[in-house]
């Protein structure tokens, strides 16, 4: 083990150009956190290799000296998956930013991991194709990061998450061995390791190349904006749409606090008197969309929608979406800081969950507008707090943890698309029993026997879970700790 940052940086400079190795605090500070700004760690050394040969060199060096490696894309992740390791090397893949090939006939794009999500769809557009997963951060986030987190977006219900839209991932083990997960065909021999690689938060391999599935751009899309007088009515409407056999292209909800927060900026025309607004989109051929919109409107009406507007033009459709898409920047203006978690719950509990969150707003003394992927039951509560006030920070964290525990009580999961990272390590102790957590550690060992790739993320230690358990039992927060939670 090399003890000093200086030794590590010097060693790495032997096979990396000087500008690809950062070790001065003023250079490494920008990498101290990802989108989860509550937790920071200045990395000892940051490397930004530009070629595969250089990447191999970095891995060989780190393996030889047993130095942890934390891979990083654009750093837009919200769970701290790219939080630097105190004694590790932060490996930025940002310079691997080439779109290697777009094959319109095969409907695939093969890209390096540093390619931005949106630029794939831009490159595919001339062929009438696009890459379906569209996380809110798509102008900045990278495909490598999307693979690490199994990112979603607003079209998951119909088009799937990253997992459903990736054919092949190429990567390297910590020791620099080449791995190919999946293939350009629809399956590959052996166990389906692609399913493990996607969403593994940089802990199983370093992604070097990804082949994505592209899908045809729908001929038309139209959006319905529906108002509800009660959040439970809106939740029931979501359930009713799905029960009617409709799979909307997008189905998003904003509660009143969220509509009021975004409207001054987005001018989307949201009904500010409504307790909740639903955005429900249909896409396909013009005839198909016309027919589906009629069915959707009928369901929404019988589900007590108080006002329904259907976009009559593409400009109007984009205006409806403008508020939803600007929710995060708007939250940034509404408070000094916001904290967004992403538990997922069965759709039928959406209304109940929103009422629970309203009660928590009082309990923690913090506001929490909600904008979320209602069709997937994937919540995005935006807890507004003051990051200069330690008490406010602590209340925001406790508020977030409480929402995640409530998600589990309702039969859901603590993360729908943001990942565990370091943020939700405690809640992993609630979601999975120790044997299953140990099995996750076994998976990690199978891919990374030396434990050098992003160690300490995703799977909590026995000790950590014991601490969390004590804390929660003393707070009386777990009524039936012995119950298994699926």
């Amino acid at each position, binding site marked *: 083990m090399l003890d000093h940052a200086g030794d590590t940086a010097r060693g790495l400079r032997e096979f990396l150009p000087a500008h690809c190795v950062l070790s001065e605090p003023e250079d490494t500070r920008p990498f101290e956190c990802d989108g989860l700004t509550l937790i920071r760690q200045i990395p000892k050394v940051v490397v930004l290799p530009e070629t595969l040969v250089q990447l191999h060199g970095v891995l060989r060096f780190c393996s030889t000296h047993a130095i942890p490696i934390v891979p990083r894309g654009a750093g837009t992740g919200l769970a701290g998956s790219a939080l630097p390791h105190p004694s590790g090397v932060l490996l930025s893949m940002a310079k691997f930013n080439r779109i290697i090939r777009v094959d319109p006939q095969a409907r695939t794009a093969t890209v390096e991991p540093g390619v931005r999500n949106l630029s794939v769809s831009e490159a595919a557009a001339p062929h009438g194709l696009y890459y379906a997963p569209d996380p809110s951060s798509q102008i900045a986030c990278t495909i490598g990061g999307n693979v690490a987190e199994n990112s979603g977006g607003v079209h*998951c219900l119909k088009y799937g998450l990253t997992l*459903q839209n990736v054919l092949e991932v190429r990567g390297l083990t910590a020791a620099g061995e080449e791995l190919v997960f999946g293939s*350009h065909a629809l399956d590959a021999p052996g166990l389906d390791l692609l399913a493990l690689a996607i969403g593994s938060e940089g802990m199983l391999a370093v992604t070097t190349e990804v082949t994505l599935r592209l899908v045809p751009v729908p001929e038309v899309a139209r959006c319905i904006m529906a108002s509800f007088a009660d959040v439970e009515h809106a939740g029931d409407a979501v359930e009713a749409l799905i029960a009617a056999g409709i799979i909307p292209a997008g189905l998003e909800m904003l509660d009143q606090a969220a509509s009021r927060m975004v409207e001054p900026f987005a001018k989307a025309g949201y009904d500010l008197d409504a307790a909740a607004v639903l955005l429900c989109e249909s896409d396909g051929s013009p005839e198909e969309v016309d027919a589906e919109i009629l069915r959707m409107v009928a369901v929404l009406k019988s589900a007590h929608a108080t006002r329904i507007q259907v976009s009559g033009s593409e400009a109007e459709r984009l205006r409806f979406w403008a508020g939803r898409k600007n929710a995060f920047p708007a939250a940034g203006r509404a408070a000094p800081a916001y904290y967004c978690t992403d538990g997922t719950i069965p759709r039928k509990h959406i209304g109940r969950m929103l009422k629970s969150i309203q009660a928590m707003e009082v309990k923690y003394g913090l506001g929490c507008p909600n904008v979320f992927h209602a069709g997937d039951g994937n919540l995005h509560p935006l807890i507004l707090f003051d990051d200069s006030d330690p008490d406010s920070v602590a209340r925001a964290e406790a508020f977030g943890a409480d929402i995640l525990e409530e998600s589990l009580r309702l039969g859901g999961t603590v993360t729908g698309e943001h990942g565990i990272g370091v943020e939700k390590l405690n809640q992993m102790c609630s979601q999975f029993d120790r044997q299953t957590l140990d099995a996750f550690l076994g998976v990690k060992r199978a891919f990374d026997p030396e434990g050098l790739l992003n160690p300490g993320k995703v799977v909590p230690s026995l000790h950590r879970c014991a601490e969390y358990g004590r804390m929660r039992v003393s707070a009386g927060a777990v009524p039936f700790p012995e119950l298994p939670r699926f």
Partner: protein
Amino acid sequence: MDDILARMVAVVQAAASERRALCIRSGGTKAFYGNTPRGTVFDPRAWSGVENHEPSELVITVRAGTPLREVEAALAAKHQMLAFEPPHFGDEATIGGCIAAGLAGPRRSSAGFTYGGVREAVLGARLLDGRGRLLRFGGTVIKNVAGYDVSRVLAGSLGVLGVIIDLSLKVLPSPEKEATLLFEMSETEALQRLNNWAGRPVPLSASCWRSNQLWVRLSGSGAAVENAARTLGGEKMEHSHADACWHSLREQVDGWFATAPPLWRVSLPSTADPMSLAGEQCIEWGGALRWLRTDLPMAVVRARAQALGGHATLFRGGDRQGVFTPLTAPIAAIHRRLKDEFDPARIFNPGRMYEDL
């Protein structure tokens, strides 16, 4: 713990301590698939039944020993379906065997809004592994990225990591309307057309080419299907006849599959050139799945599949050893280490997938 599960755990623990091989087998409908099974039969069918089906959540949770036909009937009663249209290969098929085999049927296409494969349908699973642990992975909601996605790895795992106990599966509404169109064309032209169509918003849900005939199925809303049928042309097949054709293709019971020579399952990029190998071919999944009936040596078929960017499995017949394409060294090493983690005594289905697993 339930008595049935407790007994299963006890059998596994005993086998592990004696290092005695267990061959997981329910209805035995897929016993032909993979390398020759070895070991004492372990039948998990006592653990059976639909635990929960909530149509508005698009999820069904079932015990793995539940007959596949029972799962499909429960879904059909609510106008829903397993989107990957699994082959049963016999009336005794169970949902656990179906997922462990990982085989999808005609609806696994590569176009637009896809129905996806077996993996895409798995949301959560409980596994009894070779250490006798009951492990719960995933969950019951469609978006869930907590922990590694082990439940999806069970799709196609052939039981080498353990016995699947419970499954939560994503389901989809059954299509409002379907239509099947018939065309006369060569293999080259069919591959070209299928890939062209897949790049356009056409609701293709199945395709099959053989003997210079191409049939494609469209699924979706009435408007979408009628519209696409008009655009694509071809000859419309009568509905019940079309359903029977897709069914016998899926179950491999029609004349084409009945004949003797070894049957290869060749998985290729949909745009791959014709295989141009001696034998008879039946092409599904828009060109991505090519069934080949041939007496050619294994090495020849494998080399051609690899040259075209895919892999070849000896699906039925022939010598039942080494039926799957060998793995690269680093991937094989990961397989062995996963096996060591989940089944260190190597009791479950030894050799069924690869000799050293």
